[in-house]
């Protein structure tokens, strides 16, 4: 199961795809605090999904539960066909090679150069011939939109946006089928943030990578997200295209989008 690709799908048809992520009845509690309460969610191959929700609705926790960093209190998490919290270690190791994750502040290894950071997964996997390591690192940096000279720099010498790009380059190293990003545009200026959105859309459309983004950035939702999942009250409070979600009657969703409408109204009336 874990050996074969899930992304295989009829050419040109972007709507059909096998389920890549399946959450069934996921519950998370920290002491008495309930974060998720029987949450169900399916994400299919080739989708670009944005997960939104108010502070404390467990967006980042959900991401950590999907990638196997944090065990949910109850429920099953299947990623690329593998039950993350039941599978033996060998099967997990195979799955870990097939997804990439970008953490909020990059989580680059601060004692390694950017190029060495990207090299880590390539070398550790043992799949890449020695002669191809350096060119592949250069390709990943280019794919993430970094200039070639960034490779020799230490993470501490990079700007916030470049650090995030370097983190994406590392996450892309092993041709992931799924890419998880935690707040990729937070702390970035709007121009850099939009370039980031285009990068994500390109990864999804050109390379066929399934992209799951936790974000607060309305522009990301408007410009690239094919599907928006709203978390609220421990469950999925809204799910669908942006228009479908906006038409829902969840009070938080209404408030969330009305803040944007007001901002638009203010600028246009000036």
């Amino acid at each position, binding site marked *: 199961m874990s050996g074969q690709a899930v992304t295989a799908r009829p050419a040109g048809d972007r709507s059909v795809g096998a389920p890549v992520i399946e959450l069934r009845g996921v519950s998370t509690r920290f002491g008495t605090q309930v974060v998720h309460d029987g949450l169900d969610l399916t994400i299919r191959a080739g989708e670009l999904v944005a997960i939104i929700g108010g502070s404390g609705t467990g967006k980042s926790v959900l991401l950590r539960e999907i990638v196997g960093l944090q065990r949910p209190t109850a429920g099953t998490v299947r990623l690329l066909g593998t039950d993350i919290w039941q599978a033996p270690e060998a099967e997990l190791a195979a799955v870990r090679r097939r997804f990439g994750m970008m953490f909020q502040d990059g989580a680059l290894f*601060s004692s390694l150069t950017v190029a060495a950071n990207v090299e880590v997964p390539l070398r550790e996997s043992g799949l890449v011939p020695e002669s191809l390591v350096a060119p592949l690192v250069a390709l990943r940096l280019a*794919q993430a939109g970094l200039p*070639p000279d960034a490779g020799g720099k230490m993470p501490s010498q990079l700007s916030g946006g470049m650090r995030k790009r370097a983190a994406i380059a590392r996450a892309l190293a092993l041709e992931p089928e799924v890419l998880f990003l935690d707040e990729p545009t937070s702390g970035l200026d709007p121009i850099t943030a939009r370039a980031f959105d285009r990068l994500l859309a390109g990864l999804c459309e050109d390379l066929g990578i399934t992209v799951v983004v936790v974000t607060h950035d309305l522009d990301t939702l408007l410009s690239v997200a094919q599907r928006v999942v709203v978390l609220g009250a421990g469950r999925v409070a809204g799910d669908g295209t942006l228009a479908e979600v906006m038409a829902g009657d969840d009070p938080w969703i209404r408030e969330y989008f009305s803040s944007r409408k007001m901002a638009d109204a203010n600028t246009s009336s000036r």
Partner: protein
Amino acid sequence: MFQGSPALVSPSQSCLIEEAPQGGVLRLSGAWRLARLHELDEALGHCAAGGGPGPAAGLRVIDGAALAALDTASALQLCRWLRGVAGADPGALVLQGFDPHHERIFRQVAEASAGLAEVPADRRYGALAQLGAAAQELGAMLVGHLSFFGMVVSESVRVLRAPQRLRVRELVTQASRVCISAVPVVALVTALIGLVFAYLLGLQAEQFGANIFVVDGVALGMTREFSPLIVATIVAGRSGAAFAAQLGTMRLNEETDAISVLGLSTAQVLILPRILALVLSLPLLVFVGDVAGLAGAALIADTMLDITPSTFIARLHDALALKHVVIGLVKAPVFALLVGVIGCRMGMSGDRDTRTIGAHTTSTVVQAIVGVIVLDALFAVVLQELGL
């Protein structure tokens, strides 16, 4: 569609070159994936090597009709092979029968890899250059310590002029960490050293029937030399390292920047309380060390050398001049200043990354211990000259 005769077939059937009237055709088949890079490398090697440069040289067309998968890593490998072995420009080749998805990936990689500069490897330097760089680094570090010490002195003067600026609460917190929680380990270590020292002295003194002089030796040695040295070493390892790690982490988290932006001085909020706590605590710890060391010696003297505790104390009265105890206690704040300045300076300097914090923490301990021993030797020489 033309029917060419297969010229070369690679063992894994991933690629083969066919001769055709309009030029060579490279037929790709199977899954071109990162997981199979080694296999594909071999297949491409066979493709070219079998017929020499001939078949690979005249490539015009790539046929991808039989491709099951193509990812960017294998596309990069193919592009490099095309450029290097086949001498073809991947962007200029005709793609035939490609899945649109595969074609997009190939085009993208062909374009992206065209002007790709590989990250240059680190430059290596010769032994002499490394020695020079190390010497320069050491010099810069010592000058840095000195200027940091100057900053601490000038900040102290400022606090002396306006004593309300002293962070009493922080000072007390630090003093309790540096002093009170260090008492058990200091007492244990000095008691054991006093015990061992008295025992070894006793073995020698017994041969001359001069058991009682063990008290003279232990009293002088512990109070004047051992206790200050041992306590300073323990504190360098406990508190010096803690200062460097704490301050380094605070700098990494931009907490020190937050302090500056709030209009506070990091020297007054963070550095002075730490150094002052150390300077005040070390004499107290040395006194604890004196007492524990002598107690350890008295214990072994009682059991092994037939010197009862009351005899021990009476002899202590006669033999131990107060000046030795005072000299030991005077050294302590000087050692404390050294350990505190090195710890704080190492925490507040260098790059903001985890490796620097680790390296600086280790370096603090080494520097502080070496510095304490050098200072102790200086004390010995100076006090000798002064006749003390």
